[in-house]
C-alpha cells in the first residue's frame, strides 16, 4: 500500500465498505440462527419457527431483543475483567477476519479509478486469517477460565486443545494450495481461479486440490466448534460449555460470534477452493453486458457459495453425532496431519515434475 494513496476519499471508501461488510455479516449471522432452526426442523420433520412474521422471519429480532432485555449476571467469584473481555474478544476476532476477503472483482470507474471490493489486500492474507482465527480461541479460553466454573474450564481446555490440533492440519493442507498459487494474498489466489474452465482445465482450486479441501473443511468444523466437533459446548456433558455462566448480551456475543465465524469460514472456503467471486461465463458477461455487472454478479455468486456452505455446515450438524474426545484427537493428529503432509509431498512432486 502506497502511503500517498491514503486520502480522505480513500478512508471514506474503506469506512463505507467496512460498515457494509460488518452490517452484512451481522445480518447474515442473525439469519443463520433462523436458518439453523429451520434446517433442524425440516430434517426432523418439524416446522421450525413460524410464528413471528412470515415464515418466522422476525424470530432473530425477537431473540436479539430477548437477549438484550435479559438480566446481566457476572458471577461474584469470577474474574470480572476477563469475564467481559472473553465474549468481546470472540466477537471482535469473528469480525476481523473479513478484512482480507475479496468480495468481488474490482470496479473500474469511467475515470479510470478503481474501487476494490476488499478492505485490505495484504500480501499475507492467509497468514492474517490464521492469526486472527487462532486469537479467536482466546475469547473462549478467557471467558471459560474467568467464569470460575469447572464445566466452563473443561470446555475451555477442550476448545484450546482442539484449536491447536486442528489448526496444524488446516495450515498444512493450505500449504499445498499456497505452493500451487505461489502467493499468500487472498485476491491473488482468487484471481488465479478466474472463470471456471480454461484450456481444458477446471480453474477452481477444488479440482486441483480435492484432498486439501476435505482436510480444510474438516478442520474448519473443528475450528468453528461445530458439530460433530462441538466438544467445547456439548450440552450433554458440560452444561453449556464455556458459556455456562454467561447471560444476556455476553452470551449473545458468543453465540453470534459462532455464526459470524461460520459465515466467514464459508466465505474463505469458497474463496480458496471454489473460485470466490469467479463464476462460469464471467468473461462473456464482461464482454457483452457490462464490467460493472461482472462485479455485482461476482459478489452475489460469492454470497451464494457462502450460503451453500453454511447450509452444508448445518446439514452436517443435524446429521452426525458428536465425536468422542479421543476420537477427535485421533482424527486430528493421526489422520489429518499425515494426510496433509502426504498431500503436500504429492503437490510438491507434481509441481517439480511440471517445471522440468
Amino acid at each position, binding site marked *: 500500500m502506497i502511503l500517498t494513496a491514503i486520502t480522505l476519499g480513500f478512508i471514506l471508501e474503506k469506512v463505507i465498505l467496512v460498515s457494509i461488510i460488518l452490517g452484512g455479516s451481522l445480518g447474515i449471522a442473525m439469519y443463520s440462527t433462523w436458518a439453523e432452526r429451520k434446517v433442524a426442523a425440516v*430434517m*426432523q*420433520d*418439524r416446522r421450525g419457527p413460524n410464528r413471528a412474521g412470515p415464515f418466522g422471519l422476525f424470530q432473530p429480532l425477537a431473540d436479539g431483543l430477548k437477549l438484550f432485555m435479559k438480566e446481566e449476571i457476572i458471577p461474584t467469584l469470577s474474574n470480572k475483567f476477563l469475564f467481559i473481555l472473553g465474549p468481546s474478544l470472540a466477537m471482535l476476532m469473528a469480525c476481523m477476519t473479513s478484512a482480507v476477503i475479496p468480495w468481488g472483482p474490482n470496479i473500474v470507474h469511467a475515470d479510470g479509478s478503481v474501487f476494490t471490493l476488499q478492505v485490505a489486500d495484504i500480501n499475507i492474507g492467509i497468514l492474517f486469517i490464521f492469526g486472527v482465527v487462532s486469537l479467536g480461541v482466546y475469547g473462549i479460553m478467557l471467558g471459560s477460565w474467568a467464569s470460575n466454573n469447572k464445566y466452563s474450564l473443561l470446555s475451555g481446555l477442550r476448545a484450546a486443545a482442539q484449536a491447536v490440533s486442528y489448526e496444524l492440519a488446516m495450515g498444512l493442507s493450505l500449504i499445498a494450495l499456497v505452493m500451487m498459487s505461489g502467493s499468500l494474498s487472498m485476491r491473488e489466489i482468487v484471481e488465479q481461479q478466474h472463470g471456471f474452465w480454461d484450456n481444458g482445465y477446471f480453474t477452481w482450486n477444488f479440482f486441483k486440490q480435492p484432498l486439501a479441501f476435505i482436510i480444510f473443511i474438516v478442520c474448519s468444523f473443528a475450528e468453528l466448534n461445530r458439530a460433530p466437533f462441538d466438544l467445547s459446548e456439548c450440552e450433554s456433558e458440560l452444561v453449556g460449555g464455556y458459556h455456562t455462566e454467561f447471560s444476556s448480551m455476553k452470551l449473545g456475543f458468543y453465540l453470534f460470534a459462532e455464526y459470524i465465524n461460520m459465515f466467514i469460514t464459508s466465505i474463505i472456503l469458497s474463496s480458496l477452493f471454489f473460485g470466490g467471486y469467479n463464476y462460469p461465463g464471467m468473461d462473456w458477461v464482461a464482454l457483452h453486458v457490462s464490467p460493472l455487472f461482472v462485479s455485482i454478479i461476482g459478489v452475489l455468486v460469492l454470497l451464494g457459495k457462502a450460503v451453500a456452505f453454511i447450509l452444508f455446515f448445518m446439514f452436517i450438524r443435524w446429521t*452426525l453425532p458428536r465425536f468422542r474426545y479421543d476420537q477427535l484427537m485421533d482424527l486430528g493428529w493421526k489422520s489429518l496431519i499425515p494426510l496433509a503432509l502426504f498431500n503436500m509431498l504429492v503437490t510438491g512432486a507434481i509441481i517439480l515434475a511440471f517445471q522440468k
Partner: protein
Amino acid sequence: MPYTNISTKAKQVDRRPMNFMERIYLPAIAKGLKITLGHIFQPKATINYPEVTRPFSSTFRGLHILNRDEEGREKCTACGLCALSCPAEAITMESAERKTGEEHLYKEEKYAAQYEINMLRCIFCGLCEEACPKDAIYLTQTFAPSNYDRKGFIYKKDDLLIPHPSSKN
C-alpha cells in the same frame, strides 16, 4: 422355553475393528446426509395448531355441557348419579327445590343450584354421561383451554350450561 424372546431377536453387536472405508468416515457421512436430506421432503409431523386442528374421532370425549330441553329449561335434577359414577370425583353439586314461577327455568321439581366440574381432576371417561338418567350432561368435541390458575379449571354451572335456545348466539 426361554423367559423372553431376547435370545431370538437380539442382534449381536459387531465389534470387529473398523475397516478402511469405515475409518475414513466419509462414506458413512454421505450415507447419513442422504437420510437427513431425504427427511426434508417428508410430510411434517407438526400441525399448525391454532389454524389447523387435528381431526378428532366422532367418539372423542371433551369438555362437558349441561343440556336444556326444547323450551330452554335445565334438564339436570341434581340426582347426583354423575358425581357418584365419577371415578375421579371431579363433580360436585348442590340441589334445590323449584319454586312456583320457576317452571320456565327448570324442567323438574328439583334442580342443581350449584354444579361444578374440576377439569384438572376429570379424566374425560364419559361415565357421567352414561350415568345421567335425564340426558342432562354430555361430553363435547372441544377440550379445556389452558389457564393461568387452578381456579380457572373449576367449571361452574354457568360455564357448563349450553346457551338458552332463545338467545341469539
